[in-house]
């Protein structure tokens, strides 16, 4: 089930326009018109992207019939970043050990000179 959620989130994020929309919504809610402005795209084209994002649960839309402002829903994004973060933490803990080994190797090299 979690894999399906991740799939929907990844598919929604696989498009540069939709990622740009998400980036804009991080700053606060916006109407379709406001979202369409920076892109060379019609409002219906933007609306299509918004539907994909809405289906993936990444955004929600206000009730106000005229404006229907879009806002970011953080939960699915957090799920993806948490999933990736666990992996990153594991690899990073490995690399932090490598950091201290490299410090040791650097000191050894300084002591013995590079060209032995």
């Amino acid at each position: 089930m979690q894999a399906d959620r991740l799939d929907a989130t990844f598919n929604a994020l696989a498009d540069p326009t939709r990622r740009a929309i998400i980036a804009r919504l991080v700053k606060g809610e916006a109407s379709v018109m406001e979202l369409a402005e920076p892109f060379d795209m019609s409002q219906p084209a933007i609306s299509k992207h918004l539907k994909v994002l809405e289906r993936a649960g990444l955004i929600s839309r206000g009730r106000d019939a005229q404006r229907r402002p879009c806002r970011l829903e953080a939960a699915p994004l957090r799920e993806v970043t948490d999933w990736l973060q666990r992996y990153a933490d594991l690899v990073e803990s490995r690399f932090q050990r490598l950091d201290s080994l490299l410090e040791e190797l650097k000191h050894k090299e300084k002591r013995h000179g590079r060209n032995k």
Partner: protein
Amino acid sequence: MAGTSSGKLVVTLPSDKEILLSRVFDAPRHLVYEAMTKPEHVRRWWACMDGSTMPVCEIDLRVGGKYRYVTRMADGSEFGFNGVYREIVAPQRIVHTEIFEPYPDSPSLCTLTLEERDGKTYYQTLVQHETKEARDMHVSSGMETGAGIALDRVEAIARSLATPRPGEPAAARASEI
């Protein structure tokens, strides 16, 4: 593309089947290369869980040569990785296959590149899986093996690494292979 970072490591997913790891190491390239390819060095950093050891670390660094890493967890369970070197350009590029031994039918192809700038080494590894499912499983393995480690614990481990470990028995174990 989703991405996240942990400390200095940046992990991104450039496509459905790939994982890209990027990090900067504060050391010249020849040392990073050495630390990543000599068994006596790899033993010091590969087994990263608290209380885990590395009973097997074999590296036959030549095209067509094999490697095998086995980590033994504190609870006695073991998991291994193995693969074959496809391309070696010391000290800047290694292409190798990687099989996580519990899933022998899902090999991935890893391309490691090291670039040196101003005495620092810019590391990247691109991991290419054959399917999205295998890629996702790879990322999720961080969750399975890391499940017992809370984030504050990772920090504690990092702190303990700042001080030298007394009597690392790496040499003793090498002779057991």
